[in-house]
């Protein structure tokens, strides 16, 4: 087959093909979402679908996990290399969840269909989706890949249209909820086949040469756009450093994240050599994830809204990333929380570029999905369930011209939705007591960081709970004089106790909750932008009136002086106070919180016979009312 070239294609055909490709991936996405069996796919949209060229380069990926922007292309390329193009046949479906290939965790089952037009390989259709369970320990704190579940190497799960029942039996035998898993399996098969069919429809309608030539032209257009944007950036070498709290094993030992960005003419180089070496805990990810960090940051800065997302856009980006780093980890590194560190790396790239691109970057965000993993048995029928709680959204950083967004999902995820509390309570014996914004959690600034959220969930029967968040102590940073936002947090509240049990490094492993106990997830706020002493007073009046900022914080961080006991701002007094604070170098920023308390020991249940006398409803209500007052 001739290599298609953009030169032969006219701009009209290119635009027609472009719209066609976006429609193909959109349809794949909708088919997967609507047929999926698990909430992580349907509501959380933890999946990515796409079309790839015959070499495995990204042609179009649908909205899904931004941090999986490289995952599928690199997986398709690995599959292609594994079998060789001549060993692929129509009707084959290739599967793997190899963490070091996808760069992520074993939950990401990735299916690929090679697409043939009249016997010629013209591309691939691919779908990754998160399965809630792939076996492995439920005891959470893993230190190698083998305890994390089933590892499926690259296989043909369908050969010329025929399913390989033996491999399917192996999968079923290794997961805790085989029926659910097979539901998601079917949904993914349907999605990749939709991609195959619709891509072939495009070829039939517009011609193979036109479509492939159009794709080449689209990639060239994306490249030209990205290069033009980079050319506008000032040349230079820009560096920044940030930290993760710890890896969950070496408690309290910060993990450094250091990036260097070089801009020369129309090229950008992101060097992640000085990012921490791979860690003992399960926060590692593969090289694909490290490369994704760079591409996500690059896309945000050069072509945020351009579709389709394709590899042409990244030709102006060079990535330096040696193996063995925490985002280029090698076997048998533990990978279960792969998504955690890359988000901070993306923010650190923005931080590095802040002096060069003050009007294009964003202050730090809460940078964690803030999830809780719950499992238990339903009292009514003793059936086992796994619930991925959290995904509550948090604060995003402020920008040069606007406040950060409140309660918005972290960078790893895109169109991820939280689970409605009414749905959670209908499906699981849990009660969401509170889901609200955290006042003052957004970093102060001329433009304020967005607010984080807090979710309190009561167990209505015994459950096991784990949460492994980070960026609890190392808080989302401000830019250009803006202050840090609140960090993330996890805590338990035992029924009848007056104090919370909190976990200063965000790692709450394997906690058993009894009836009436609650877990509490808190997402951090975003960093502020610009000095808080320059914040507009009308905006502050609204902040305080609406309770986004407390009166106290308005005084301490923003230099506001209120008239008497009112919420009315005294403009003159405020100006004087601000001048004074400015002279004193106030307000202070505290980017890294000091640990306040030791990690609580594993929970030993204290039995309180009094509580047994209550009906379930009395107990639930009592537990909730105690906490409402707190």
């Amino acid at each position: 087959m001739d290599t298609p070239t953009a030169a032969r294609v006219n701009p009209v055909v290119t635009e027609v093909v472009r719209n066609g490709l976006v429609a193909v991936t959109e349809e794949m996405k909708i088919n997967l979402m609507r047929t999926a069996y698990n909430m992580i796919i349907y509501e959380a949209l933890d999946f990515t679908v796409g079309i790839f060229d015959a070499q495995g380069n990204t042609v179009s990926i649908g909205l899904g996990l931004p941090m999986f922007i490289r995952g599928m292309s690199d997986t398709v390329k690995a599959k292609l290399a594994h079998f060789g193009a001549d060993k692929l046949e129509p009707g084959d479906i290739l599967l793997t969840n190899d963490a070091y290939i996808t760069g992520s965790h074993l939950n990401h089952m990735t299916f690929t269909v090679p697409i043939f037009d009249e016997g010629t390989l013209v591309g691939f259709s691919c779908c990754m989706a998160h399965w809630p369970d792939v076996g492995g320990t439920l005891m959470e704190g893993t230190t190698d890949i083998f305890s994390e579940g089933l590892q499926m190497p690259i296989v043909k799960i369908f050969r010329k249209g025929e399913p390989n029942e033996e491999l399917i039996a192996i999968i079923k035998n290794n997961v805790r909820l085989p029926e659910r898993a097979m539901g998601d399996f079917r949904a993914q098969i349907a999605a990749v086949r939709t991609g195959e069919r619709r891509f072939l429809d495009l070829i039939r309608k517009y011609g193979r040469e036109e479509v492939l030539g159009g794709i080449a032209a689209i990639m060239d257009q994306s490249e030209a756009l990205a290069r033009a944007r980079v050319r506008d950036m000032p040349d230079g070498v820009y560096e920044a450093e940030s930290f993760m709290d710890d890896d969950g094993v070496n408690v309290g030992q910060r993990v450094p994240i250091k990036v260097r960005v070089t801009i020369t003419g129309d090229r950008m180089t992101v060097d992640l050599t000085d990012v921490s070496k791979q860690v003992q805990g399960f926060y590692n990810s593969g090289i694909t994830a490290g490369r994704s960090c760079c591409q996500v940051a690059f896309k945000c800065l050069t072509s945020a809204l351009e579709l389709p997302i394709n590899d042409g856009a990244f030709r102006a980006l060079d990535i330096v990333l040696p193996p063995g780093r925490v985002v280029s980890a090698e076997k048998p590194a533990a990978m279960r929380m792969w998504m955690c560190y890359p988000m901070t790396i993306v923010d650190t790239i923005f931080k590095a570029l802040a002096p060069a691109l003050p009007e294009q970057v964003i202050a730090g965000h809460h940078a964690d999905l803030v999830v809780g993993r719950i499992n238990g048995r339903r009292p009514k029928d003793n059936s086992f369930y796994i619930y991925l709680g959290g995904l509550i959204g948090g604060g995003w950083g402020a920008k040069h011209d606007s406040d950060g967004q409140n309660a918005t999902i972290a960078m790893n995820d895109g169109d991820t939705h939280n689970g409605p509390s009414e749905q959670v309570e209908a499906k699981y014996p849990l009660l969401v007591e509170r889901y609200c914004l955290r006042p003052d959690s957004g970093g102060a600034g001329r433009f304020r960081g967005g607010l984080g959220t807090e979710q309190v969930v009561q167990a209505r029967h015994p459950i096991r709970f784990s949460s492994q968040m980070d960026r609890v102590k190392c808080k989302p940073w401000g830019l250009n004089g803006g202050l840090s936002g609140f960090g993330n947090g996890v805590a338990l509240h035992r029924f009848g106790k007056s104090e919370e049990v909190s976990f200063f490094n965000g790692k709450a492993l394997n906690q058993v909750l009894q009836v009436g106990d609650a877990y509490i997830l808190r997402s951090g706020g975003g960093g502020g932008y610009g000095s808080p002493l320059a914040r507009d007073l009308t905006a502050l009046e609204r902040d305080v009136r609406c309770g986004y900022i407390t009166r106290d914080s308005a005084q301490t961080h923003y230099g506001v002086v209120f008239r008497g006991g009112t919420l009315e701002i005294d403009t003159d007094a405020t100006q004087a106070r601000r001048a004074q604070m400015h002279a004193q170098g106030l307000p202070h920023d505290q980017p890294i919180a000091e640990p306040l308390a030791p990690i609580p020991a594993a929970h030993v249940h204290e039995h309180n016979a009094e509580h047994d006398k209550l009906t379930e409803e009395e107990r639930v209500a009592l537990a909730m009312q105690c906490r409402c007052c707190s």
Partner: protein
Amino acid sequence: MSESPAARLAADVGGTFTDVAAFDETKGELRLGKTLTTPAKLVTGIENGVAKAGSRFDAARLFLHGTTVAINTILERSGAKCALLTTQGFRDIYEIGRVNRPESYNLFFRRHSPLIERDLRFDISERIDAQGAVLIKLDEAQVLRVATDAVARGVEAIAILFLHSYRNPAHEQRAKQIIEAAFPQLFVTASHELSQEYREFERTSTAAANAYVGPRVRQYLTEMESQLEAARFGGNFLIVQSSGGLFDAADARRSCIRMLESGPAAGVIGTQALCASIGMRNAIAFDMGGTTAKAGVIYNGDVLMTGNALIGGYATGLPIQMPMIDIQEVGTGGGSIARVELGNALRVGPESAGAAPGPVCYGLGGTEPTITDANLVLGRLGAERFLGGEMQLDVESARRALSERVAAPLGMDVVEAAEGILRIATTKMAHVVRWVTTERGLDAADFALVAYGGAGPLHVAAVARELQIATVVIPRAPGHFSAYGMLVADLRRDFVNTWFKPLAEASFDEMEALYVEMETRGRATVTRGQATLTGTTRRRAADMRYVGQEHAVTVDLPLELFHAQDRDGIKRLFDAVHQTRYGFSVATEKAEIVSLRSATVGEMKKPPFEHIAKGQAAPDAAAKRGSRPVYFAGAGFVDTPTFQRSALKAGNRIDGPALIEEHASTTVVQLGDQLEVDAFGDLIITINRN
């Protein structure tokens, strides 16, 4: 005019134009009028339209109305100051929403912006669980205290959302009662009255939007009624809902949000009636105006519905959760701008030149070339014949803009550029038309395409070709089609009730009780004060899924299944719907019910379709208006005859290429296609699919 009022009037009031359709029942005659909207006193514009259509309010016994008042109030953010009362702990649910970032790489992304500010959102101590059990009793004193405080702060409307009110509405009902007793003038809306489906954010947003538009809609309806009275209208006044059904003003005062998409919905209802009259079972309604193209589906004679929509777009829109016609849209209309972007990418829309400045050829200051300019340069629009000759178009300016801004940068000639713009627009519109079918597992090629809106008839043949659609229908007066659709609508009330239950355990007695309760309320609503109904029908459906799945599909369930208590029959129907929609079904896998749906329809006598005069195969000489060169892809400029639509007769046949011109629209018949005028005056085009 006769002594007994016998006219039915319909008015679709838009931002610029008011379209009126008047049907005289004595003469069996349908007449239309288009006038400028009169914002200060809308009835004036409507009366002008009614007069233009040769009718009078005092001669009418029915007035059917579609209005953008509700949706504009939301889009313009001009609604009432409202408060929201929510369950303790959920004050922020309206702001937190679903936390998603649809523009995943846009650091400057902004989320939905609530209609009620945080200082007017209040926690109320109360709690009901997912089974409907009361965990914490409603703090009635707090409700009164909070409402009193809100009123003191100038609130005109209050929305109430308590968790699980779809399961047990007692607390919402009681809170509403308390507030209404204390403040009878306040507009109070409780979420369960609008939606009895789970998902608290969507229900909150629905209730909040209703409160937000409530006072303005109520005032609008009151004014309209008094103006109608002044115009000596003595009949029934009904409003079109987003479901395409009608409801009365009393209902509309409470459930204002149901009229959100009345205009577009009426067009789809009109399409459904048109299909019935000409014996078509499957059709896609294609409505193309100045800024958007919209598509809705008639499948097996029924209009396809959806349970929710995002008002203001996917990324930042506010959700409304209630049954409505599934209408998808794309930002491609006559005013859509064509631009060359970096890397020589040619983009068409969604930016639109709108009505002002409008396309370059309007000569009103527009500088960027649009789809309309491309149509003009290619000869599809006649410069002297736009809006019946009321507006002269400037071909030279259009050509210059296309040349300078598109053709030159891309190294094309002007005609090539104009044709390219139309081709891109065609494929974009084809995607949205296909989308409404493929999202259900249907194939657009099995449907006819019914085109209306000012620009629909110009583009529909190309869109049909793109989708391998065989038949295109242009109804009479495509520019007034929504008003016409109102004339053929029925009264309708929809209910949805979330009821999680494995199918195997679902008790038929319980289901019957739930349906009957909805149907009783539905019947009471649609029959209230309606002397003109010819009957009522009830329809049942259920949202179902396989156990473990998240997403449910709606399955229409014939009443016989319930009479026969045929559980297997319900399962078979569900399997079949799932198979069609998603390409697989599992007979052995268990299904569960998520929600029960009920629709009660109060049927109205429809105006019969009027036959037009019969003619020969060849159009009369009087219909011919000459010819002009028109560009067709692959053939270049071809001398193309033009016809005046009003002079065509039933049975006339015209082979493409041809243009059929009427007041606000031009139909393009492409080379190789054939047009026939049917007995009712519809243009039926057979597309050459080879």
